[in-house]
Structures are given as C-alpha cells and as structure tokens.
C-alpha cells in the first residue's frame, strides 16, 4: 500500500505522489498542469512537460467577475492539448492552494479525470527533482465541454443567505484575524475588497492551511483531518457545507479536502466570498472583536 493509500482518505486516488509523477512524465495519457499564485514561478522552472494554467488569465472571465465559459474552457483545453480522456494532474505553490482552485474550475466543466500531486511544488523542489525552463507545446485538441455547471459545487450569495437562515454549516478558511473582523485595513490603505470585517454568521473558522503538513506541503492524514473538521468543529460527512474565503481560492482547497479526502457529499465553494459578502448591503455579519 502506498503512503497516500495508507492515510485513510475516502477518495485516495485523487492524489498522486511526486514519485508517481516523476515516473509518468512522458505518458501521453496524463497532462501535468502547474497553477501558482506567483506568476514568476512557472517560467523560473517547472516539472518537465508541465503546462501552466494561470488563474487570472486562463480561468477568469477577462471582464466580468466570473469564470470562463464553455467556449473559453474549450479553448483552454485545446491550448494545453487535452481531450476528455486525458487525466490532468495539478500541482502548484502555496501547498497546492492554486492547484486545487484550478482543479475546482475544471470540475465546473465536468473534467473529472483530474488529480492533484500531493505536496505540490514545495515537495518536488525539496526532493531535488528536475525543473526546466523549457515550455512544452502540444498539438491542439478539439474539446467540447458541457456548459459550466454552477449548481453542484459552487454557491452564490443568495444561496448562502438561505444557507445561513437554515442554520447550515459554513467554514471560513481565512486567517483568524480576518475571521474575527480585526483585520480590515492594511497599513496605509484600506484592505482591498471589503467595507466590513467579520464573518458570515454561524461560520466556523478553520484556516485552510491547517489541512497541510507545513514541512512538505502534503495533506494531513484522514485521522488528523477528521480531528479538525469533525472533532473540533462538529461537521459530518452528510452535512451540506459551504466554504468561503476572500475570493474563493483558499476555500477551493478546503472544498477539495472535505469532498475528496473526507468524502463529504455536498460541499460548495462560495467564490463571491468575503469580497462580496463584506461589501453587500443588508447581509448579516458577525464579529468577534
């Protein structure tokens, strides 16, 4: 049994190890995709054969605050040379924060042949594995995705409002200071995006990175994850859970953990998150400072 299989995850095959990736670099059935917060990382060196998917330029609509549409996803899939049969393997910086975000967007278009490299870029680098600056090119493919499905894993503001009124669980994955409402302004200028500080009423605070082993960026095992989300916070796999952060990126990491590693049946990512909620007129807010 591999290390990942031994950790007790409900859907362990959603993760692959760095060793596995290293031994599948030239396998055409897989496409390795790097997604980072820092746009300088991929050009500074990446896993041989990996393509870059950048959240600002590839995954977001250039004008509206929304994700790309079907035509945009088809074009992206064609550019990186994948078909529906290609298994995409995401990895990136910040403990795979952006990798899970890209993974989540790919699920909006039903590309379920998707995995995440456990430990991300940090573990790959720490193991001294090869990085290259050579940007690969793959023959363009013809890809026809279904229309984006926003109903299963994505939550909108009014749905979250109904969720709050129903007393259903929410997970706020921001830092404790953001959750409490203490942190509203950075030195010298107002914190971008939110006029009000605090959290959505009823939300539990679980900073996203608690799911990670900080030394190598790997996910904690199922026992440790359950201790956090279930032991401390009282969530259950059958719960209807909404996760949020500031713009929906960190919460996609928690969505991934709850959905795949712990097997929760209904978890949605509220990508409007605090930048929408904290600016909305009339929505309820709780503060703990």
């Amino acid at each position, binding site marked *: 049994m591999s290390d990942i299989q031994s950790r007790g995850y409900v859907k362990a095959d959603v993760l692959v190890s760095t060793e596995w990736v290293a031994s599948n670099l030239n396998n055409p059935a897989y496409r390795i995709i790097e997604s980072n917060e*820092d*746009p*300088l990382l991929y*050009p500074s060196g990446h896993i041989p054969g990996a393509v870059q998917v950048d959240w600002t*330029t590839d995954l977001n609509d250039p004008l509206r605050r929304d994700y790309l549409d079907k035509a945009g996803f088809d074009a992206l899939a064609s550019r990186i040379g994948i078909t529906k049969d290609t298994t995409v393997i995401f990895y990136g910086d910040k403990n795979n924060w952006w990798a899970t975000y890209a993974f989540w967007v790919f699920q909006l278009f039903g590309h379920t042949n998707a995995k995440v490299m456990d430990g991300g870029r940090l573990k790959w*680098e720490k193991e001294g594995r090869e990085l290259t600056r050579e940007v690969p090119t793959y023959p363009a493919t013809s890809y026809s995705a279904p229309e984006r499905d926003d109903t299963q894993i994505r939550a909108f503001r009014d749905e979250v409002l109904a969720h709050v009124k129903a007393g259903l669980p929410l997970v706020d994955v921001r830092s404790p200071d953001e959750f409490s409402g203490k942190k509203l302004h*950075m*030195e010298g200028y107002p*914190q971008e995006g939110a006029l009000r500080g605090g959290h959505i009423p009823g939300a539990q605070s679980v900073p996203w990175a608690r799911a990670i082993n900080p030394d190598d960026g790997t996910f904690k095992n199922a026992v440790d994850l359950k201790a956090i989300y279930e032991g401390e916070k009282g969530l259950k796999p059958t719960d209807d859970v909404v996760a949020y952060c500031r713009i929906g990126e960190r919460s996609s990491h928690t969505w991934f953990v709850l959905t795949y590693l712990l097997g929760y049946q209904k978890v949605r990512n509220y990508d409007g998150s605090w930048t929408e909620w904290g600016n909305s007129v009339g929505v309820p807010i709780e503060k703990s400072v």
Partner: protein
Amino acid sequence: MANYPAKLAELVEDFESITNRNERAEYLIEIADRFSSVKVPASIATKPYDESHRVPACESDAFVWATENPDGTLKYYFDVLNPQGLSAMAISVILEETCSGRPLREVAALSTEIIFSIFGREVSMGKGQGLMGIVNMVMAEAKRRL
C-alpha cells in the same frame, strides 16, 4: 512618477513598455536572482525576526528593515521566508537598488501603483496586496523619519 527616485522611475518606464507577459516574467526572474544581495545580514537581524518588521498581508512572509546612513538617508534590507516568493524577492531587489540612499522625501512619495506598472495589471489581488505591503513598509520607514 516624476518625483520617484530616478532609477526607479527609469525602471518603471522600462516595465511599462513591456507588453509581452513572458518577457516581463523573464526580466523579473533575472532581478529576483539578485535577492541575496539585499537579504538582511545577521548584523541587522536574525531569525526569528521581530514581527514588527513583517509585511502585513504578504503570503510570502516578507520582512523589511531600514538603517540610517550618516547622511540621513536609509539603507533597506529584506528577507522573504517563502523560497517560492519570487515576486516578493523581485520587488525587494528593485526597492533596495532604487531607494536605498535616496532622499527620504522621494522614497516617502512612492506609490503602490508601481506594483501594477512592474508586475502588470493582471497581478492577482492577494499577490498585489503583499507586494504593495512591501512598498508601503519601505515608504513608512522614510515617512516616519521626515
């Protein structure tokens, strides 16, 4: 931009003329490669660093220090604890190379807008906040000595 330190104004103009995303990235990586030259020496600070030097909202764990030169100008030092924080390293190098030794009024009059000129308008919200935080810390050190 007219009141920025001259070297910074030139650099900002250089970056504003770059329209190719890859070319911009290459230039910034080249700059980040010089980070060791601006890294805080043990004579100024050792880990664990005093939290008062931490840049707020910087996900790359950046820190800024300033020491006074005999002529009253400042010498800036930086550290970026996240080894993957290349953008934070690049802006640290840029600020040290263009603001150390410059009149305090020039440094105090910087604008966080330089982040968008240097990194491009598509810089992410989180990334932008951290990078602007580094600029703000450098400006704050100059302002409080004016």
